[in-house]
Structure formats: C-alpha cells, structure tokens
C-alpha cells in the first residue's frame, strides 16, 4: 500500500490516474422489452470509493447485482483487472457484497459468520479464529462478541459483523447494497464515517449504492448518478454539487430552486413564469432552453434591488428550523422560493412580511433538460 500521508486531494487526484480495476462496457440488463440497466460505460479505479446514487427503480440494485454475479447481464462486458467476468458465477468472483438486509446467518454466532468464507476456503480453525478476532478488533467490536448470537446484536453491531464477514473473504472489490438504509439518522452518520475510515485502512475498492446523495457525498471519491437505467453524471462530490448536469441531478441534491428559462441574450435568460430576465454567468454551449438552478444557501434577503444581480419581491410564507440552518419559504407570485440562512445570523423576519430576495449571476447554474 502507498503512504497515505499526503493530503486527501492529492490522494484523490492520484486515484483517477490509476489503472481501472473494474470496467463496464455498454452493460445492459433487460427484462423483456424493459432495460433495467441501459448501456452503462464506466471505469472504477483501484482503491476508489465509488458510489452509485439513484431513486428507487433507477436500476442501481440490478447493476450492483450484475457486478457481484447474482444477476446475469443481457449484453455488454464486465471486466475485472483485464478479464471479462460476465459468465463467472458469484462464488468464483473475487468480489463480495454487503447486502441491504445484511444477510447474517441467524443460526451462527458472530465469530462463525465472520469465519464463514474462510471455512469455505478450507482454512484451519485456529487460523480462522485468529483472523476473525483481528477483524472484530478492526471493526471496533469487543473480542467477546466472537461467541455471541448475531440475533442479539444491535443494528450497528450487525453492520460491523456483515462488513467483517465480507472483509474476511478478502475481496478485490467490496459491493454495498444500501446497507445503511434501515438505520436511524444518528447511527447512520457515525457508520458512514466509520465505513470511510475502513476504506482508508484497507485500501480496497468500494462500490456503494444508495438513494441518498447526502450519504454519497460524505463517503465517496466519485459519485455516479443513475436514472432510468443510465448514468446521468459521473464526477467527484464537488463536481456533482457545483455543476449538476441537468435538472434531475440538481433536484436529487435536496431542496433547490429550479426555474424554467430560455436563452435570450449573451448574459441573460428569460423566465416566462416570472415574466422577467435573469443575469447568468456561465452559459453551456449551444444552450437554448432549460432550467436555472439556484441553491437555497446562495439566495439571500436584500434591502434594495441593487444589492444582488437578480432581485425579486415576495412574501415570507413560513420558516423551518433545520439544525444549524433556517429555511424560509418565500412566495413570489405563483412561485415558491427556498432560502436558507445560518442560524447564528440574527433575523427579524415575520410571516407575511414583504421581502426582497436576490442572488448573484455566478450562483445560478444553467442546466439542460
């Protein structure tokens, strides 16, 4: 393993230059005439933490099941370290999956679950035990959990046992099928960080699927956003956040303001719903019509029309406290805007008060579709 001492950005930079461990070439899975996964091309680098995000029904589960060998591809190639593995059954693939239900064997103890892949490989009991105990240690589980029934473990502990079992297999790639989806918010946040730490410690390639872009942002080196069987956008969390490719990706990020617009001048777009023009900074090539996306944290309350590049007058309808931030709903005619402020900025806003909201041209993102 290389030294991990340098800063993380350098580490990520190096990652993209590494040779791909997993290559997908026009990978497709059809059920009848319906393509659940529709011609996916993707390279995943060795040691990368790659997350596939998509709403339910986007085909992400089918995709990862094909990668793990539990579903047969209809066409296209899955290439692992240069070898096509489409026809290799799951039990022969040097990859391993952590299931959504975790699939811990209920009739086995924690130790026996972790040792399972070693037992299958024919490793002798003493060595199995040593390895299992080491994994318990690595996953921050007490040693005396070795003989404990998995049925008596808590949600978080079961997550760790499932991960330990997968690591015991010593796979080249670890797949994760939304393992954290059934866990409460606070524990999930902890486990996300732990998972990222384990990724760093082991240096293995992680391919993770989730429906939560927020979760993906926390852990991933790169994210692929999936919709209707296709990868809509692949990029670093920062790229996905600051330069979403289309309306779908931008809305997937959470609450955003999306305004249908059409091209009108060199630096202006027309929004019919407001009967207004908005200034924009960057305009994609050959852009004629699409949406203007503005994140709620980039919209601010202003005093006069000159305080921002684009300013609208509206009525404050309601406010919502979101932990460290406060969100406001502002109604401009028929349109609704979401505005966010940090909590510590004091505010004297009242409901039904007339307010001016504005944003700068550089904070509006134009997307097609």
């Amino acid at each position, binding site marked *: 393993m290389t030294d991990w001492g340098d800063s993380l950005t350098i580490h990520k930079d190096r990652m993209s230059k590494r040779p791909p461990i997993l290559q997908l070439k026009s990978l497709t899975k059809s059920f009848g005439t319906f393509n659940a996964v529709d011609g996916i091309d993707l390279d995943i680098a060795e040691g990368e933490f790659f997350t596939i995000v998509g709403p339910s029904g986007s085909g992400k589960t089918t995709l990862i099941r094909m990668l793990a060998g*539990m*579903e*047969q591809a209809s066409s296209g190639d899955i290439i692992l370290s240069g070898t096509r593995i489409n026809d290799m059954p*799951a039990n022969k693939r040097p990859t391993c999956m952590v299931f959504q239900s975790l699939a811990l064997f209920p009739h086995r103890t924690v130790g026996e679950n972790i040792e399972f892949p070693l037992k299958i490989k024919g490793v002798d009991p003493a060595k199995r035990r040593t390895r299992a105990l080491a994994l318990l240690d690595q996953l921050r589980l007490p040693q005396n959990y070795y003989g404990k029934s998995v049925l008596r473990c808590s949600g978080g502990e079961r997550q760790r046992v499932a991960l330990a079992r997968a690591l015991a297999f010593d796979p080249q790639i670890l797949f994760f099928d939304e393992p954290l989806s059934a866990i409460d918010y606070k524990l999930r946040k902890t486990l996300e960080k732990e998972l990222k730490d384990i990724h760093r410690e082991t240096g293995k390639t992680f391919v993770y699927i989730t429906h939560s872009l927020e979760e993906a942002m926390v852990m991933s080196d790169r994210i692929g956003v999936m919709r209707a069987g296709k990868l809509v956008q692949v990029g670093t969390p920062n790229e996905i956040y600051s330069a979403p490719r289309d309306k779908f990706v931008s809305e997937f990020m959470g609450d955003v303001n999306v305004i249908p617009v059409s091209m009108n001048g060199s630096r202006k777009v027309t929004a019919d719903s407001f009967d207004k023009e908005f200034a924009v900074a960057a305009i994609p090539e050959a852009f004629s019509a699409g949406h203007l996306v503005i994140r709620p944290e980039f919209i601010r309350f202003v005093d006069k029309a000159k305080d921002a590049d684009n300013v609208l007058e509206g009525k404050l309808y309601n406010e919502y406290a979101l932990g460290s931030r406060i969100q406001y709903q502002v109604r401009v005619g028929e349109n609704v805007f979401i505005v966010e402020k940090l909590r510590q900025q004091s505010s004297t806003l009242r409901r039904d008060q007339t307010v001016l909201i504005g944003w700068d041209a550089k904070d509006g993102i134009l997307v097609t579709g």
Partner: protein
Amino acid sequence: MAALHETGKGLSQGARNALPLLIFLLVGFAAPLLAVIAYSFMPERSFGLVHSPTLINYAGIFTGNSYISFGWSLSFAAFTVCILAVVCYPIAYGLSRVFGRWAPLLTLLFTIPLFVSENVRLYGWILFFIKNGVLLGTLKSWFGVELESWLFTRGMVLLGMVYVYLPFMLFPMTLGVSMVPNETREAARDLGASRFQVFREVELPLSMPGIMIGLLLTFVLAVGAIAEAKVLGGQTIIPITHDIEIAFTYAQNWPLGAALAVLLMIVVGTLVLLVLKRFDLDAILGRR
C-alpha cells in the same frame, strides 16, 4: 427475486422444486379421482372399467334415498360452521390480542387433539354420556338423579362435529385476526367508532381472509364427516359419506358409490375453488 441458480433454459427453479410434489399428487390424487369418475359411469355392481359407460348410477341417486343423506350432510355441516364461528371468534381474538405470553401454550393445547384419532376422541364422549358413565353415573350416585342418556341423538352428532372440527376453524381464524394491525383498531376508536362499529367496520373485513378459510375448511370437512354420526348418532342420521361407504362395502356396488363420491367432490371442489380464488395465500400465510 433471486436468480442465483437460474440458468435461463429448461424449468425454472420453482418448477423444479415443485415437480416431485406435483408428480406425486398426479399419481396419488388426480389419478384416483379420475378412477372414481370412470367407475361412476360403469353399470351397477361391476368391478372393472371394461363396460360401456352409462348414467344409471346418477339416476339411482335420486330414485334411492341418497339425496336425503346429502341434505343431512349439508345441513349439519352448515350448523357446525355457524356454531364454530361463534365459539371460535373470542378465542381467536384472545390468542392474537389478549393472552400474550400464554398464547403459545394455549395454541399448543388446542393443537394436541388434532393429532389424536377422531374415533378415540369421540369415544370419550360416549364414556361421558353413556348410562352409568361419567356424567349420568355421577348424577345418580351423588344426587340420586336418574336421567335418560342423550347419546344417539342428532344433537349429539352436532356436538361431535363441533368438537372434532374446532381446531380447523380456530387456527385460520386466529391467523386472520392477527392480520389486523392494532393501529387500525385504535385509529377507528379514535375516530369515534363504538366497539361494535370497530368490529364491523375494521376487524371483520380485515380478518376476513382467515375467517373465510376457516369457514371453508370446517364446512368441507364437515360435509365429509362420517365418524360422528356413526359413533355418537346411532342411526338417527345417515350422512352421505355413510351411503358411499355402504355402497363400497356391504352393498358391493362400486359404481353407485363412485357416483355419490363424484357428486360430493363437485360440491366440495366448487366451494374450495370459489373461495381460494379470492384470496392471496402469500398474504395469509406469509403475512407480507
């Protein structure tokens, strides 16, 4: 669903697992029923299937007394089902809602009789009701009261049927009642429904699948009942199964017996298919 072993060619994984059972039922269930149907078209008192088909046995059912037996069987089955529905509902409700940690033990206690030969259990009632038996003997020696035995009456047959088929009503019903989420009861109460309204508007419709299976199962089994009338009823009623048995044994008239059996099969089969068609077994058994 998992396609772990799916090869894409030949039979699906499910069909392959089902195959041994299907073959067995073909040989052990479908074939015998076909044999019965074939025999029912043979001339009277023949023992082979070599004769040319005739409808004489079916005509014989209505010229003889067998239609009366059909009437007895159907009406007693209907009575049994009604009584059992009333008897079992509170218990089913108790098992799924009231008894808590005692429910498994009570379920076990209700299960055990299922495994005991019907004859033996009915014989216990004889010992209870017979002259100088447990009931009358006690009354006589302790209170000096002498009563006529109630054995060999129609009421006794009904008691026997209610007794024997109780578990077959109770268990499906319990399954049905436990399918009603408690929140829906509470929500209905909260929305102002009286206890009876909760029962009629929420509990009954939601537990209907289980209740229907229970009604069906007990009715079908009770139509085919024979031991109760024989052991406890004397000759007060002759159920259709008794006629069938007589035709096969003493009368040595297999084709007539077969024709009666076919009629019974049609009644039972129609009912079963009608009711089963309406329910999703996965929902009832797997609760998903």
